């Protein structure tokens, strides 16, 4: 249905030639694995792939810099090894995701979504592990799994499947159903509690509903409800006091009392700013090597970039991330159907929000919430989820002709 709304006249003639009914029919007859046709692989978005790979590699390097220990001449490689392992897993996951046509994925999109919900429910049960007041992890041997990270991708896929065939503009009950699909995992995440990741879901929901054709007034009402909800959370007892302080701390940066969060932000800004224009050089950052920035290899990895590579390096990283987002946006634009477009917008919303929130937090323009910088932060779940998301976008991109 969505396909029929596309204006074929705007597609270049060579591409239109390929999109003949017979060709489409032939495709449909092919088996799942035959679908891995060379034709699709020729349309892989190499720019997106390169950007993602570059940012991931740089992230791994910065993780090494921030975890190698304080001795300037000794390098502890343990975190780097693990991150490389996560990246390999992420790339494998991405490849697997691109193997299956996203339109086929739509048919069983409910399955990963349901698995995600179960995991989110289990993680707040005694099976989950608590760290710093948030129960968000499963301890699997020496590895940890954070289901909320993977749930972001499964929700994007499920909501895209749900909305792809919806009537435009969206009816109220459709909007309600969508909110329910978002709301259940978000509520489970708030039980951990992890406001940061919950806000990522809000961002994804906003972006996808907007693109799916929600009425303007619905979007406005939802935004108002969202703001009230956040204020409500901040003023209620859902969060521990220190968690609330963390979130609101950035509003009072010149406050003299150096509590943990203020210290965190202060050291974070000192690391980035002291890098100045050209940075202190790779592995030369003292804030980084000497451990002045807490959680640097995870949530505050951008501070290592800022300190060691300076404005040149961090602007380049931001530029690569921006280019990545541009390519995803472009994929949304040229997607073959609404499903593809919604998947891309969901991933785009997730990434833009996380990048802005994470990088903004390290520079003191956003509150400190525990969400990762996609591709760069240390952590298997985050890396895997980010690469799976890119896999979905690549999937849409390479199959944009049908």
């Amino acid at each position, binding site marked *: 249905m969505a396909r029929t709304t596309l204006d074929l006249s705007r597609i270049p003639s060579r591409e239109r030639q390929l999109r003949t009914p017979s060709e489409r029919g032939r495709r449909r007859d092919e088996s799942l694995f035959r679908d891995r046709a060379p034709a699709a692989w020729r349309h892989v978005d190499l720019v997106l792939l390169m950007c993602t790979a570059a940012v991931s590699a740089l992230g791994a390097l910065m993780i090494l810099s921030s975890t190698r220990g304080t001795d*300037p001449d000794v390098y502890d490689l343990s975190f780097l090894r693990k991150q490389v392992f996560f990246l390999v897993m992420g790339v494998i996951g991405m490849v697997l995701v691109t193997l299956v046509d996203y339109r086929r994925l739509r048919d069983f999109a409910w399955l990963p979504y349901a698995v995600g919900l179960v995991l989110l429910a289990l993680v707040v049960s005694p099976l989950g592990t608590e760290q710093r007041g948030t129960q968000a992890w499963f301890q699997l041997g020496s590895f940890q799994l954070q289901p909320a990270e993977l749930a972001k991708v499964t929700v994007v896929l499920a909501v895209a499947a749900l909305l792809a065939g919806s009537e435009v503009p969206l009816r109220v009950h459709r909007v309600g159903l969508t909110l329910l699909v978002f709301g259940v995992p978000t509520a489970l995440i708030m039980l951990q509690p992890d406001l940061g990741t919950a806000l990522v879901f809000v961002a994804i929901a906003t972006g996808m509903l*907007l693109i799916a054709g929600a009425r303007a007034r619905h979007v406005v009402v939802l935004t108002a409800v969202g703001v009230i909800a956040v204020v409500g959370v901040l003023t209620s007892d859902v969060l521990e006091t220190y968690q609330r302080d963390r979130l609101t701390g950035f509003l009072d940066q010149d406050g003299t009392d150096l509590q943990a969060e203020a210290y965190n932000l202060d050291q974070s800004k000192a690391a*980035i*700013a002291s890098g100045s224009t050209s940075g202190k050089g790779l592995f030369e950052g003292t804030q980084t090597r000497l451990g002045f920035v807490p959680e640097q290899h995870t949530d505050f990895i951008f501070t290592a970039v800022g300190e060691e590579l300076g404005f040149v390096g961090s602007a380049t990283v931001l530029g690569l991330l921006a280019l990545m987002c541009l390519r995803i946006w472009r994929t949304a634009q040229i997607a073959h159907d609404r499903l593809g477009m919604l998947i891309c917008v969901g991933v785009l919303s997730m990434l833009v929000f996380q990048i802005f929130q994470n990088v903004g937090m390290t520079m003191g*323009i956003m509150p400190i919430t525990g969400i990762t910088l996609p591709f760069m932060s240390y952590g298997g779940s985050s890396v895997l989820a980010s690469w799976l998301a890119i896999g979905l976008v690549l999937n849409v991109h390479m199959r944009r002709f049908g």
Partner: protein
Amino acid sequence: MRGHVDEHRPRLRLSIVAVVSVALFASLFARLYDLQVVGAGDYQVQAEANRVRTVQIPAPRGRILDRDGKVIVDNRVAVVVAVDRSVLSELPRARRDDVIGRLALDLTGAGNPVSPQEILARLEDERFNRYAPVPIAVDVPEELKIYFDERAADYPSVVVERTALRAYPYGPLAAHIIGYVGKIDPTELAAHQDETAKPYTLNDEIGKTGVEQTYERWLRGTPGLRRIEVDAEGDPVRVISERPPRAGDDLVLSLDVDVQALAEQKVQQGLADARARPNRDGTRNAATKGAAVVLDPNNGQVIAMASYPSYDPNIAVDGFDAAEWARLNDPVNHYPLNNWAIQGQWAPGSTYKLFMGYAALMAGVMAPDTVFSDRGGYLIPGCSGDPHCYRRNAGGAAYGNVTIQRAITVSSDAYFYNVGAQFWLQRERLGGEEALQTHLRPWGLGDGTGVALTSEASGRVPTPAWKREYAERVDGDPDWRTGDSVNMGIGQGDVLVTPLQLANGYATFANGGTRYVPKVAIRAQAYQTDRVTQKFEPEVAEKVPLPPHVRQPLYDGLVGVPVSGTAVRAFSGFPLDTYPIAGKTGTAQVDEKSDTAVFAAFGPAPAPRYAMAVFLEESGFGGTASAPVARALFDALSGVVPLQPAGPNGLPVGAAAPLAPTGASYD
């Protein structure tokens, strides 16, 4: 269908997403630029301050040499046992207590008694730099270093280092001029907080007295600086840079150790002799304190400065212990830490007559050839009905008709009583009630000489104003009377001088009227080299007008003293014809005590090289007690008797008299 497309317009909505995304990225870029390009400076300072801690490494002090380069104060290497707190804090509690306990036991066994509690208290003292080991015992036996070095594994956190301590090759020689060093106290630290070239930290040593204090600027070394990188927990990671400490400058004193040793010995001996010699009235001299000063009248340099009683500066190394400190400050021991050559104030007695004679001639109270009839005493004009109205000469001798020259040689009191009286009686004509004092002050009397030693006393030139003020403040007669001027005539009454003042007054006369600021140091030079870093040039305090018609009779009078005057006995046998000496005895009366014996002189008189003053408290006649001390010094200075080199105990013979135990009586 088309209508729906129009209404929901995905491309428009995608543009909204694009605009929002671009806005978010743009704000990130803007903030990044703001932090890293605009505001980097402050944060770079903060990041650097985060990671760097500095530790000062103490530098050796400069040495102190005599004028010929003989080392009076040296540095020696001492062993320091210290504890590294960063290592200690890593140990389990039981192990920590064990190490501290055994350390206390070993140190106590080696003669440095210390308890585990004392060690722990020291380790908790936050004034010690966190990144340097805390010294527990200084100057422990070398064997202990070997012991700890060999058992490093049994004594984690125990560090054995070396440090420089003061060493005194000549023992107690010149202890008062040298002074001593000690740990800086909070007051001194505050006073030196702006010192940037050689900054102080709380455990640093600083000169406390003597030239160690006044030449601190040169003697103090430049501390080394170790920059340590620390991690977020404040634990040291590595040494970033190290500037080695630089030793302070050597200080070359004007003292001659051999003359100094002789002066110290002779003062001590002079006092001992005075104690042994009964007075005419059968009383005994206490002879408890004494001082002698030898100056070069041509530049004001101090050749020797002896003060008795003295102390051994070795007891000040690494701090006085409490018992020692109590003994040094017990009145029974006459304050050995005081330098009586500059802190002692005595009536100068007849040595003052040089300055009185000068005043008389300059003011025209007397002419050089004025003859005065000395009948053995003086009746104060306008005074009657009081036995004190008639003042007898010392010993009651009558010298007959004397001019000023003869009055000095024989020390005619009557002559100078009259000078004093006339200044007061003719004050209207002579320039007011301070007519006399005006002629005394140019000699530096009544004011500190400005020598670079602390706690110098100023002496006193009494005036009517002073007397009024004193009567108001303390007690007594507020009015200046003729008798007060009469007393001043012979250096008695309320007149006070310090030995250095008197010596400097005679040096001024000796060189023709140039009064120098006495100097104890000649130059500073780079540690253990000859490279001069600072010269301490002679400094003229005042030019005293001294016309020949005034100087000559006074000079002749002084030169006559050892030849035919009051010091004949003391200088018998001295080759005065080839080495004339101009001198003056003084015997100052003190109520209910023996007289202060004084002698001031310079020689060789026509071309003076030395000026000196000797004070022996409660020791009897100047000519009997003090003149022999000066004679002994002139014997050596003139080469008549070979000058004995100073020995390791600071004296040519014998050592400083041992201090009496606290509470002992002395008489």
